[in-house]
C-alpha cells in the first residue's frame, strides 16, 4: 500500500540522522532489542565531545530504566539512531542493561504465566 506522505525521499530529517550517526550504518536488533531496558551506570562522566543527542540520552537515562524504544520515543529519535548511540554508550561502559531477550526465539513458560496473571489482575 502506498499512501501519500509515506514515502520520504532524502529529507532534512534523513540528513539529520546521517549527521548524528556520523554516516555509520545502523546496528541490527541483535545489538539491543527494542524492549531491552537501559539506564546510566553510576558515577560515569559524559564523554568529551558528546553531541546534543548523546547528551539528551545521557540526561534521560540518568533517571532510571527505560526500554530502547522509549528512549527513542521520548527524544524523538528514529529507533535505529537511538540504538546506535545507546550501543556506543553501552560499549563504553556507560550503560547498565536489563531484561535482554534471549537470541533464540523460545518462549519462556514462567514469563507467560506471569504475564497471564498480571493481565488477569487487570480485569479483576
Amino acid at each position, binding site marked *: 500500500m502506498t499512501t501519500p506522505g509515506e514515502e520520504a525521499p532524502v529529507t532534512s530529517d534523513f540528513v539529520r540522522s546521517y549527521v548524528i550517526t556520523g554516516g555509520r550504518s545502523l546496528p541490527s536488533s541483535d545489538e539491543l532489542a527494542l524492549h531491552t531496558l537501559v539506564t546510566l551506570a553510576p558515577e560515569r562522566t559524559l564523554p568529551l565531545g558528546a553531541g546534543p543527542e548523546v547528551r539528551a540520552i545521557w540526561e534521560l537515562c540518568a*533517571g532510571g530504566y527505560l526500554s530502547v524504544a522509549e528512549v527513542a*520515543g521520548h527524544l524523538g529519535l528514529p529507533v535505529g539512531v537511538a540504538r546506535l548511540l545507546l550501543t556506543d554508550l553501552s560499549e563504553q561502559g556507560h550503560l547498565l542493561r536489563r531484561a535482554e531477550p534471549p537470541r533464540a526465539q523460545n518462549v519462556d513458560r514462567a514469563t507467560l504465566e506471569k504475564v497471564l496473571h498480571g493481565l488477569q489482575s487487570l480485569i479483576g
Partner: protein
Amino acid sequence: MDSNPSSAETAQKSIYVSSAVTNAAKILVVGHFAVGKTTFIGSLSEITPLRTEEKMTQASVHVDDLRGVADKTTTTVALDFGRLTLSDDLVLYLFGTPGQQRFMQLWEDMARGALGALLLVDPARLEETFPVIDLIERYGLEYAIAVNCFDPAATYSEAEVREALDLLPDTPVVYCDARDQQSSARALIALVRHLLERAA
C-alpha cells in the same frame, strides 16, 4: 497528544520503569492500517503511548520486486508502543506494527524476543488481514485474532471469520473493543493462554 515531549518534561520520575523490574516481555499488536492498533495500546498502556519511527532504506530491495533493486527510497514507518507493569519485576511492552510487506526490517526487529502477536481485525475489511497473517507466520510468531468491533451488529460470526481468514482450528478468535481497557486485556489473555498451550 504530544508524543515527543522535550527532555525537560521527560525528567519526571513517572516515565521510568520501576527499579525492581528485571524482566521485560513484548507482545506485538498487529493489523492493517487504521484497524485500531494505537487505540488498543492506548487503552492498556500506563504511559502515554509513544510513537517513534524507523527508517527503511532497503526494505523494497528485498520484498518489492516490482520496484527493482535500484530503488533506494527512504521510507519512514511509525511505530507505536505502550508499557504495562504486570508485577513487581515484570513489564510488558506492546508494540503496534504496520502490516505492510515492505516493512520487513521493522518486523524482524519487532519479532525478536516477542512472546506472540495479537492480530486486530476489522470485520469490514477482512481481506486486508491476509498480508499481515503472512508476515506473522513468516516470523514464526504464535497469534490470536481479536475482532475489533466498533459496531457489534455489523460483525461476522466467529465461524465466518475463521472461514474467511482460513484459520487453524486452535487459533483463538475473540471480539474486543480496543477503546476499553478490560476488553483489550481479555483479548491479550486469550492470546497468552494460547501461547501457554503451545509452549506446553
